[in-house]
Structures are given as structure tokens and as C-alpha cells.
């Protein structure tokens, strides 16, 4: 989901997908997309020969970014988001 973060936190192998949060293997009931991501992960597991190997998957999310961005959000801000907002810790 966020491979830049994943590799900085020392994951030994990482598959990058440019998908909205909550959807690491893709779209509900899209078996082909889910298989693509899982297959890449398995082949990276077995085939990577060094720490920090990262493979990004060239799949574009088929829903406009604005709509997908809205769709992954929880019904109300998470407690930590609300906590950050109350302390003016965002937008600095």
C-alpha cells in the first residue's frame, strides 16, 4: 500500500500497489486482480535474493482518485485523527 514506508521500516521484501487503503489485493470479486497481487508477492517471497527487494505492480486503480479517496475513509475520523485535529498537529 505504501512501499516507501514499508521499505524504510526494514521490510525484507515489498510489493507496491497504488490502491486505496483497505484494498491491498484490489477490488472486491475481481479474482484476476487479487491473483496478480498475490502471485507477485509469492514470487517475491521465493525469488528475492537480497534484503529490501521491492517490486511495484503497474496496475492503475480503475475508479477516479477523488471517488476512491472518499470511499476508503471510515464513517467518522479515527480517534488519532480527531486527536491530531484537536491539537492542531495536521497542516503544519
Amino acid at each position, binding site marked *: 500500500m505504501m512501499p516507501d514506508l514499508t521499505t524504510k521500516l*526494514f*521490510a525484507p521484501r515489498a510489493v507496491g500497489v*497504488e490502491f*486505496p487503503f483497505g484494498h*491491498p*489485493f484490489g477490488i472486491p470479486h475481481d479474482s484476476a486482480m487479487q491473483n496478480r497481487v498475490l502471485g507477485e508477492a509469492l514470487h517475491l517471497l521465493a525469488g528475492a535474493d537480497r534484503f529490501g527487494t521491492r517490486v511495484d505492480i503497474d496496475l492503475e486503480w480503475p475508479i477516479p482518485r477523488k471517488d476512491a479517496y472518499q470511499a476508503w475513509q471510515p464513517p467518522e475520523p*479515527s480517534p488519532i485523527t480527531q486527536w491530531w485535529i484537536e491539537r492542531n498537529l495536521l497542516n503544519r
Partner: protein
Amino acid sequence: MIIDSFRFLPRSFRPIYENPEPDGTDPIWAPFEKRLSESRIALLTSSGMFLEDSQASFDLDRERAEPTWGDPTFRAIPSDGGAINLAHLHISHDDILADPNIALPSDRLSELSETGVIGEVAPRHVSVMGYQGASLEGWREIAAPGIIDLLHEDEVDGLILAPV
């Protein structure tokens, strides 16, 4: 092709995630020495998935009361099914409940076992509630040792981690 890790993140959150501290952990590398077609594979999701009929939810009440705390426990999810629910305050549940395979692709993994791509599916997958707030201490002391014991008990060769 290099993807944009922050494409779906609120812009105001980006500085929080751009330069994370590794929290004192050293890099760890374990080569995978078996063939996939002879390996037993498990999955781990951070979606807060649990079995609706037989497992307790993750503790969301405490997280609401202590926003910098996240439940560090884990749930074992049988790979042969069961009605699931989610306990996670940071994402919409709609799509995962519509098709849990987008967070824990157990059905896809079973298909890869049937076609011989992997040896077999582990009897249990693993679920955690990914948000850990200010510290990973709970995962180090509670979740990680328990998950390692479970994976050893099930003789798992490889684990695919799926953050949500």
C-alpha cells in the same frame, strides 16, 4: 514503474509518514530455501478481522478512550472459512466485508494450492488490528511471540503480510 505511495493518503497526513523511524530494529533477512510448490503458506492481514461467532472483537473502546493506543492482540483465522467481521476505526469496512479476499486472499491462495503453484495453504491465517499508536511494544511483547508460535506449530514456510 514506481508507484506513488501517498496517492490515497490525505495530504495533511503526508509529513507524518514520509520519514518514519525504524524503532531500533535491525534489518533481518531470511532466504526462502524451498520451492513454492513444496511450501506451506499463510497470510496475515492488519484489517482487524475476527470470527464473528467465536472470537472477541479487538478493543476499540480503549482506542477511543486512548487515541494513541492500539490493540496489540491477534486472531487466528481458519483457512477453511467462517463468518468474519472487522474491528478497525481507520478504514471503511464496506469492501472488505463484501469480499474479504481483498484483505486476506484466502480463496485465491487455495486456488494456487489446487493448481500446484504453492504446496499447501496453512491451516490458520493471522489477523491483527494494524494501528498501534505511539509504540510497537505491544506487538513485540504480545502479538509477535504468539504469532511466531502459531506459525511454528503449523509448520508454515512462508508468510505474506498484507497491511491495509
